[in-house]
């Protein structure tokens, strides 16, 4: 069974948006946790989240200051900003709406429920009181959809393109999350290093990987080891290495995959070059930026290879 290029593209985006919704919720939840643990003097600002998501131009079109209220409104409640959770959920839903015929019957119902939940609850969740519960609910509903898909979607093209979108988005968001820790983005100029373990722990928690880290690496949470673990650990499903290996496995059976495979190989080589112990905060931040550019290239060749095929 083959698949329409247009359907493959929508599934790919469905995979991306669903993962983006979940990872954005994880990002905000982690930061939300962190900020309560941090001494006031460290002056962590909420605007970091906007920078991580590359949403500064969009944000400052609408808001003057990057304070807690504005940033959270922008990320949790703004229906039309492309960086918000409701936006990601709406487009995940829209893509399911137009691919219902190739997905398990419950997909539409579940994604629709997620959409209804987010539209009803988002506005009330900007404040601290309901925020965490909202984020957890979004994460668990996203996981429910993913779980249902992974247990009932045949391993054909539908699964393949969904998964490509999902894995690529996850790699991208994971690298962004790590950028919180590189400090460059926090503009901390080396002070308050005592809070570093707190930051890295909350980042691991955001990836549901703190327990795995303790078992596989040890109880001490250190920047270099966390970075290696999250980028390079082949057994961790949220690590970048794991995602790229899975992408490779999904690409293999596809026709016309040569170009994409070459771009992917570049990414895997780049991944091997990460050596956090020899890198400054600035160098790390630059590395993450370059890596994200590489993932953007990967997206472009995937689009050119399968979604916009030449007319024969």
């Amino acid at each position: 069974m083959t698949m329409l290029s247009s359907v493959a593209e929508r599934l790919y985006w469905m995979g991306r948006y669903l993962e983006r919704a979940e990872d954005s919720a994880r990002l905000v939840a982690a930061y939300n946790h962190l900020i309560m643990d941090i001494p006031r003097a460290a002056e962590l600002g909420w605007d970091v989240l906007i920078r991580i998501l590359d949403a500064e131009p969009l944000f400052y079109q609408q808001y003057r200051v990057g304070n807690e209220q504005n940033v959270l409104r922008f990320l949790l409640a703004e229906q039309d900003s492309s960086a918000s959770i409701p936006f990601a959920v709406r487009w995940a839903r829209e893509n399911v709406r137009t691919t219902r015929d190739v997905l398990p019957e419950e997909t539409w119902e579940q994604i629709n429920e997620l959409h209804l939940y987010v539209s009803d609850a988002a506005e009330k969740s900007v404040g601290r009181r309901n925020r965490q519960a909202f984020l957890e609910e979004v994460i668990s509903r996203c996981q429910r959809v993913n779980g249902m898909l992974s247990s009932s979607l045949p391993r054909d093209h539908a699964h393949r393109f969904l998964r490509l979108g999902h894995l690529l988005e996850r790699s991208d968001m994971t690298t962004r999350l790590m950028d919180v820790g590189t400090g460059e983005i926090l503009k901390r100029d080396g002070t308050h290093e005592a809070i570093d373990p707190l930051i890295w722990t909350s980042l691991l928690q955001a990836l549901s990987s703190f327990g795995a880290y303790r078992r596989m690496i040890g109880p001490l949470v250190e920047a270099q080891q966390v970075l290696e673990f999250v980028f390079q650990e082949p057994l961790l499903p949220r690590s970048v290495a794991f995602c790229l290996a899975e992408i490779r496995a999904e690409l293999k059976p596809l026709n016309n995959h040569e170009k994409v495979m070459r771009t992917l190989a570049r990414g895997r080589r780049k991944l091997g070059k990460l050596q956090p112990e020899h890198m400054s905060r600035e160098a790390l931040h630059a590395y993450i930026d370059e890596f994200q550019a590489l993932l953007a290239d990967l997206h472009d060749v995937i689009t050119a290879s399968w979604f916009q095929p030449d007319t024969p």
Partner: protein
Amino acid sequence: MNESWKSYTAGSFFDELITPKGQPRAAARGVVRLLQKLPGDEMAERRAAAELAIREMGISFTVYNEAGNIDRAWPFDIIPRVISAGQWQAVSDGLRQRSLALNHFIDDIYNRQKILADGVVPADIVLESTNFKPQCMGMSPRFGVWAHVCGSDLVRDGDGRFRVLEDNLRVPSGVSYMLENREITKRVLPELFENYSILPVDDYPSQLYQTLASLSPRERRRPCIVVLTPGIFNSAYFEHAYLAQGMGAELVEGRDLMVADDNCVYMRTVDGPVRVDVIYRRIDEEFMDPEAFRPESLLGVAGLMRAWKAGNVAIANAPGSGVADDKVIYAFVPDMIRYYLKQKPLLASVPTWLCMREKDREHVLKNLDQLVVKPANESGGYGIMVGPHSTAAVRRKFARLIEENPRNYVAQPTLALSTAPTYIDDKVEPRHLDLRPFILQGRDTWVTPGGLTRVALTKGSLVVNSSQGGGSKDTWIVEGKA
């Protein structure tokens, strides 16, 4: 008795569930008894559950207005409409007969035109109709069938007799709502199913698949079938997706398809072009192929008619089928049945005056306040005048329209449409309804058990279209006595 039912009276119309004496009809006894026995607020609770289910299942339809397209939740009434299987059998036989005759007619018109030569149907009304497509002359689709999916609208008059009101042969819609209505009832009134033997409806997608597969020009175990939709903004998009999924077929838009130099249709896939055998067309033929019809259409596929005429792809319904879907032609269907099948029509239709005939026109103009006047060519309930509900100004306007273009108007007596108990606000009240069954024809013919019941939610209204404030009901064909 539940409070909401207490003041129910069937009134002067034929009521589907309640006799004039206020007793439930035999087939409906179980449903009515159970609903009447529901304690206190339960009617309202069940309705809320249905609304929630509709929201969760994402059953919607799109309404167009000045403000743009609005996706609305599907309006559903929880009280099912019940028809006995014995009664339905006769209707079903009549529909099958009608569909056979209509297809004979279309095939005849695009080939020998015998029925015109024999003077049974006047040639000019067929050949001058905008629904007659000269591009289709000489085509002879498989089994001589053109209209593979037909949705006929039925009403019941004052005696409870079923009559055909019109036949929709172009791109009839609504079948997915028939299926979803049953799903909703199963969720919100599961106990109703305990004591009934209700004919299932969920077979439809596989019946449709078999009908379409039988048309494939290539002999293959699984022909490549696609559902061609105008896209997400079409009011019936929900249904297009639903049926594609039900059949395991691809849901495509025009840009997903192309016609290559070999006059075959291909779809663009991640593995390159793949040949298509059967297209279930849910886009008007006018927009189907810019080469053959409207050149400005962006929805269609250039060369589709070429491929169809070369016999390389089947299209359902075939282009040109609309020639039999015209309110003037409607008046001749009983004659077609006698002419092609040598049978007596099994299903009553509605007496129709054709304004193109001088005598008929005189009668219509004299009795405008009692008749329903319809344009020959519109669907969706647009452009209709219901005489008894009209103002003198509207009647004057229609008189003028008729005089200007008599071919385009027909008139029928205002029917005393049947009613059924419908839950409005906190009371059960009678509302008028119709029924749209679907008839499939390919190698075999098949009729849905029941169909989509549409109900006019406004008191006294006869307009059942969902775009104009209509709702719907689950329709049960029940065996034996409950």
